[in-house]
């Protein structure tokens, strides 16, 4: 099994000496779904954002698909990684002034120099896969939150990424819209995509994750298979967190 992401002793400090990441070490294998859980402020979003260079590092090193990121990496390395790693945000972050189709085809045309027609064909296929083909010519604000997030997933997939990062993809959604997004992610996982998912969705983690990583105060508390994590977590802090989540 080959490693997609290897993080070694990552450190990220904010002002006043607060450490958002305090020596995080982990590996994500190709084809694996890693779910990252933890209370807010535990550093899980910061961690996943270092994987494609949205957050800089103060210490430690990352190997993402063979490209190295550390405290002094060049912009070129970040660009290389971003072409091969997709990201989905809590707030969708679709481009409001572009149609759904243009949102999806912009990067393939500009970054990968694909022909417009081919990029649009691929975009329509992806929208089909997400069950929102008929929304292609609308604008983001005309779509529901769940539909927008599925567009965001399609937009990231349009670059044919080798890894997908999800930063609390369902946290900004109305409860009745959560399922459609999780279903799309489930489908992606079944197709063998390497995924790192920061989420509070216990059901998704239990069902889809290969491993669950629990973080607190910038540190990894434990990493277990979902069965162990949810029924018999090793660490007291994990058990306390799960207890609070279930009430």
């Amino acid at each position: 099994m080959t490693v997609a992401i290897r993080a070694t002793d990552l450190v990220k400090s904010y002002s006043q000496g607060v450490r958002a990441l305090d020596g995080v070490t982990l590996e994500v294998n190709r084809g694996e779904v890693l779910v990252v859980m933890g209370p807010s402020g535990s550093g899980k979003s910061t961690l996943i954002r270092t994987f494609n260079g949205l957050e800089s590092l103060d210490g430690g090193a990352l190997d993402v698909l063979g490209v190295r990121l550390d405290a002094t990496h060049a912009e070129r390395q970040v660009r290389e990684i971003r072409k091969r790693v997709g990201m989905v945000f809590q707030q969708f972050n679709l481009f409001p002034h572009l149609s759904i189709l243009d949102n999806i085809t912009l990067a393939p045309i500009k970054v990968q120099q694909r022909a417009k027609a081919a990029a649009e064909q691929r975009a329509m296929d992806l929208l089909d896969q997400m069950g929102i083909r008929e929304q292609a010519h609308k604008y983001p604000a005309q779509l529901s939150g769940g539909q927008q997030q599925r567009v965001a997933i399609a937009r990231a997939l349009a670059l044919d990424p080798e890894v997908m990062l999800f930063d609390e993809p369902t946290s900004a959604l109305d409860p009745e819209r959560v399922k459609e997004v999780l279903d799309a992610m489930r489908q992606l996982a079944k197709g063998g995509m390497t995924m790192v998912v920061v989420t509070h969705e216990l059901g998704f983690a239990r069902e889809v994750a290969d491993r669950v990583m629990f973080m607190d105060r910038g540190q990894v508390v434990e990493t277990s298979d979902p069965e162990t994590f949810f029924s018999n977590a090793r660490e007291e802090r994990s058990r306390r967190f799960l207890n609070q989540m279930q009430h």
Partner: protein
Amino acid sequence: MRQRRLLVQVGVAALLIGLLALLVNNLAVNLIRTGLGLGFGWLGRPAGFALAETALPYAPSDSYLWALTIGWLNSLKVIAAGLVLATGLGVAAGAARSSNNRLLRSLAAGYVALIRQVPLLLQLLFWYFVAFLGLPSVPIGGLIRLSNQGIQLLGLNLSVEFCAVLVGLTVFTGASIAEIVRGGINAVPRGQWEAFRSLGLGEGLGLRRIVLPQALPAILPALTSQYLNLAKNSTLAIAVGYADLYAVSDTTITQTGRAIEGFLLLLLSFLLLNLLISGGMAAFNRAVLGRLNRSR
């Protein structure tokens, strides 16, 4: 409460009417005093003065009307070029202030800070007397030649006066536009930057295709007033001897004594020019907002 408001309204109206009456009265008294009466017949008489810079053929034997037209064209030339260049400079400096590059960021911040501290008139005099008149004759790559006679650019001969006014207006207005652009860019959510970056798009492309289009609605109204300022500030050209509309009007008024008519023409010319600018910007604004509304 309502009565008091009504009273205030009536008071303000009375004050305005009073001021207007005073103005008209002054005008009438002045007209009688000059003994010339209000008339524009003098416009057809020969101007008798030379102009250093003429966009169309002009000789001192031509009429005042033609001299004023040449002045108007000179104004138009420097204003139009100034609008384009100031916009380019302002957008570049405004974008540079939100760049990742620290050197670029401080350069842009220094430029804005410096230019905003110094009066425009001083800046124009600086560009004229220090920068352009002090130029040695330097050819640059055969296409451009700089000298204290002006700038020769691809067969285009730009006078020192024109260059000083153009550069002065551009640099001065560019600094204000930079602040407006920076404000507009800052109003675009951080998530938009993160989204285009995570798709592998470069900073320049993201700025052009993602950030600036969303910043436009915040930028345009303030940009319009900067454009109008630039047009109005162009009358300072007289300080460096550029034959703009104001300078030609000034000479005309001195020679003919037709101050009232001269100023009326001047006012109307600038009114027309500024209506053109604000009308154009309003149309552009509507187009931008229209596109944005369709996306809502």
